[in-house]
Each structure stands twice: as structure tokens, then as C-alpha cells.
């Protein structure tokens, strides 16, 4: 899923401080799972803002809506009739949702309420870690199912570097060395000899490097 983190409320206040009518718009997908932009966080942010404006002696109306998804036309249409009533919408969806909102509703400023961080997994409640950088050419079959692109600090395809120490990455004792994990995994699979196969220079044109990407599936288009 896409993992995001709540923006500091001061930053959000900076965006909406002059608004009279604000909509806080949550999303029921990834940002709900990572507890950054679901219904609960919409409620918390709305209350915090109400408190702030009250203290400022300002009468500002703040509404709360949480959509099923913000990266889908169908669900965004649900606020078609009300969107124009606001002079500011804070979207707690990931960067995709914020942009899709902005593309659809031109006359209202849309502000991001979260920082979109990475593609990752919930290791445990309150701990999300990165697993993929969407390089567009998945090589997990070669690396025992562990991604060196997203999990090695230098995205080495033929690691580990000389800084790997006690299973940890040279940049922090809190980060596992991806290549230690890959080697452990290859060993467990009885495939350690695969380690000696050199991974060729990667085609990064399917990655961010190739420019904005698109997936087209004519067979499913209507």
C-alpha cells in the first residue's frame, strides 16, 4: 500500500488560515490502514482546526467527509454538489488522491494534509516500512524476494557494499542491510550459488527516470 504520514498541523493551518469554510476529505484506502488520512484522522484534524479557529475568535465552518477512494472518478463524483461551497479542501489522501481531486475540482484550492512516503507494509501497528519503489521491472525473482532497489540505501544490484555490518546498513543501526537479507534468504532456499551471478546493468527507463509512466490495457477499456 501507499504509506503516508500526517503533516504537522501548523503547516495545514498555514494553508487554510484565511478560509471561511473548509472540507477535510479523508480516504478509506491505504491512508486509513496507515492511520494518516482515514475517517478517524479526518475527525482529529477537524477538531484541532475548530479549536484553533475558536481560539483565534474566528467563525469557520469545518466539514468532514471520507470517500471510499480519492484515486477513482466514481467516488470523487460523490462530492460534486458540495465541493464548490468550500474555499479550501484539505485532502488526507496520498499525493495521487490530492492531485486527482485538484484535476476534478478546479475552482477550489486543494491542500495536501499528509506527506506521501513510500510503498510499504504494516510490520506491526504503528510501524510501516518500505518495500518497493515501483521500478517497473520487478527483479524479485533474482533476489530471493527481497528488493534491493527499495531496501538497499544505494540500490546496489550486486551488493552488499563494504559498509554492511552485523546485518545492518551502513546508514543506520535501525535499518536492515537488504543484501544481508537477500543472502540469508538465498541460503534458506539452497540457492546461495545464485549470489555469484552478476546482475546486469538495469534498464531504468521503466523507473522514474523514463518520465511519467502509463499503463494502457486496451483489452479492459470500455
Amino acid at each position, binding site marked *: 500500500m501507499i504509506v503516508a504520514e500526517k503533516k504537522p498541523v501548523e503547516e495545514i493551518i498555514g494553508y487554510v488560515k484565511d478560509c471561511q469554510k473548509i472540507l477535510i476529505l479523508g480516504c478509506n484506502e491505504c491512508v486509513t490502514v496507515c492511520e494518516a488520512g482515514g475517517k478517524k484522522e479526518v475527525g482529529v484534524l477537524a477538531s484541532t482546526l475548530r479549536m484553533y479557529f475558536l481560539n483565534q475568535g474566528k467563525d469557520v465552518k469545518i466539514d468532514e467527509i471520507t470517500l471510499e477512494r480519492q484515486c477513482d472518478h466514481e467516488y470523487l463524483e460523490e462530492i460534486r454538489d458540495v465541493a464548490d461551497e468550500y474555499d479550501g479542501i484539505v485532502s488526507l489522501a496520498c499525493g495521487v488522491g490530492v492531485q486527482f481531486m485538484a484535476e476534478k475540482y478546479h475552482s477550489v484550492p486543494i491542500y495536501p494534509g499528509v506527506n506521501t512516503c513510500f510503498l510499504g507494509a504494516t510490520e506491526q501497528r504503528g510501524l510501516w516500512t518500505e518495500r518497493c519503489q515501483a521500478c517497473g521491472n520487478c527483479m524479485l525473482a533474482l533476489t530471493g524476494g527481497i528488493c534491493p532497489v527499495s531496501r538497499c540505501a544505494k540500490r546496489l544490484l550486486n551488493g552488499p557494499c563494504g559498509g554492511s555490518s552485523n546485518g545492518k546498513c551502513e*546508514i543506520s543501526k535501525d535499518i536492515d542491510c537488504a543484501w*544481508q537479507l537477500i543472502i540469508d534468504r538465498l541460503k534458506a532456499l539452497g540457492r546461495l550459488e545464485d549470489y555469484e551471478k552478476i546482475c546486469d546493468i538495469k534498464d531504468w527507463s521503466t523507473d522514474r527516470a523514463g518520465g511519467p509512466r502509463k499503463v494502457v490495457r486496451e483489452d479492459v477499456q470500455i
Partner: protein
Amino acid sequence: MSLKTPSKLEKMLSQGHLAVTSECGPPRGSDPEAIRKKAGLIKDYVDAVNVTDNQTSVTRMSSLAACIHLKLMGVEPIFQMVTRDRNRIAIQSDILGAASFDIFNMLCLSGDHQSFGDNPKGQNVHDLDSMQLVQTVRFMRDEGKFLGGGDISRPPKIFVGAAANPFADPFEIRVPRLAKKIAAGAEFIQTQCIYNLDKFEEWIKGVCDRGLHEKTAILAGVTPLKSAGMAKFMKNRVPGMDVPDEVVKRMADTPKDKQADEGIAICIETIERLKSVEGVKGFHIMAIEWEEKVPEIVERAGLYPRPETG
């Protein structure tokens, strides 16, 4: 053995001499005197001089420019290149730039992570990794082609090296990793600084058992310790560095004003012991900001005068 490049280092090794290399870090500024001065101190005591590439991710004068200064003063440079800061276009371009000045040696590295340096907020590139950089230089030299397939007019004649850290984890793949670098095309290897000789000897035995020492020339890396503080810092703070407790203790038990001498003594003992170890083809003396001590180390270790390669 027929030589593949005009490199003096390659020639020295092919004639069976123990090679001696050292390194110079370029200055944090544009004064060429800084690099010339360092190189001048060591030039008659070593066969070639590595020029580091923004080492520990701290911004410095470019390695290539500093190599050119060395070359112009008659010193044989080893152009260090990290994959952190350049994509494959810049890499190939800098290789040609080096070749245009007849720089005949390169050391291919991935480089420390930028978080260690003075620009922790910057991007890193890593379009290639160090292994693929070795392949790239060899491809450009041996096939005379760019990665994109086009022909290179006057291909680079570069003797290609890589680093090995026998002390990094996981230890069990440290020999396979060397095999991989050799398969990629590494013709010489410079190791991480060696303080744990037992572990180094265990590694190089594994290297020799697989016959890998016949396929590449391994130069054992040494760095004289200046003080007990430096020993502790290297032990605790430098990733992938293995400084055994005995070494730290030996430095700490020495009175402060004698610690530098003790560090030099340890360095010389290390060279003496490793000279006769199978698979060691020379020494890479990294006297960090202490270049003036290199001549003494080379002399006292019995590696001076340097043989004439003709």
C-alpha cells in the same frame, strides 16, 4: 603476461614485484598546490597514487581534475570513481576524459552513502553499481564501445581495479563477492584497511583456495593509526572497519606523545607479516592526511627503493 594497458601498476605487478600504492585526498578548495604538495611527498616511494572521489561524501575538488594535476607532475594516478554521483552518461564521459590525459588506472567503487557527508539532503544516483562500473570500463576498453553500442574513437586504456572489504558482513560471501568482481573484470583489488590480520588471512586463504589470487592482484590496505582516539573512532564509527580490541589497547597503553610512533610501528608490522602471505601482491598505504609518513613506512617495511619497471 602480455600487458593490456600502459599502466605502471600493471607492469609492476606483471613483473612480480610487490606493488606499493598510496592515496591523496583532493582539497576542499580549488588550490592545486594542496594536491601537488601531498603527491610530492610520496611520489618516489609508491608506484601509483589513488585519488579519492569525494570520500565519505564530503564535497572536494574532483578526483579527475586532481588526477590530471598528478599526471602533469609525473605521478601515476589511480582515478577513483564512485557510482553515487554520476549516471552512466557522466561515468562514460569522465572515463574518456581521464583517458584523454592518459590516466591508466581506475578504482571502481559505489561510494559511502551521502548521509555521511556535507550534503545529506542530496540525491544519490547509483545508475550502475561498482560491479557494473568495473564491467563498463572493461567493455569500453576491450570492446572499444560505449554502453549504448556506438564505437569509441581511441578507447580508454585503463587498468581496472575494485575494492574488497574482507571485514564487512556477511563474511561467508566475502570470497564469492571477490569472485564476482573478478568475473566482472577487476584486474587489481585494494582492500579495506587491515587491523585484524587473522581475519584477513582467513579471507585470503579462501581466495587462494579458489585460485582467485591468480586472476587478480590483491593489494593489502593499511592505514597507520595516529592516536588511540583514532583507533577507537575507526572501531566504533567507521562502517565495515574491524579494529580488534588488542590494537585499540596497544594504542591506548602507549603514552600520548608516542602513540603516533606506535601506529607507524603497527602498520609496518602488518606489512611485514602480510608480505609473505600467499595472494598478497602489494600494499595500499592509506595515510589519511598523514602523507608525510608514507616514505618512512615504505622504507622501514623494506619496500624502498621502488623497482624500475623499464
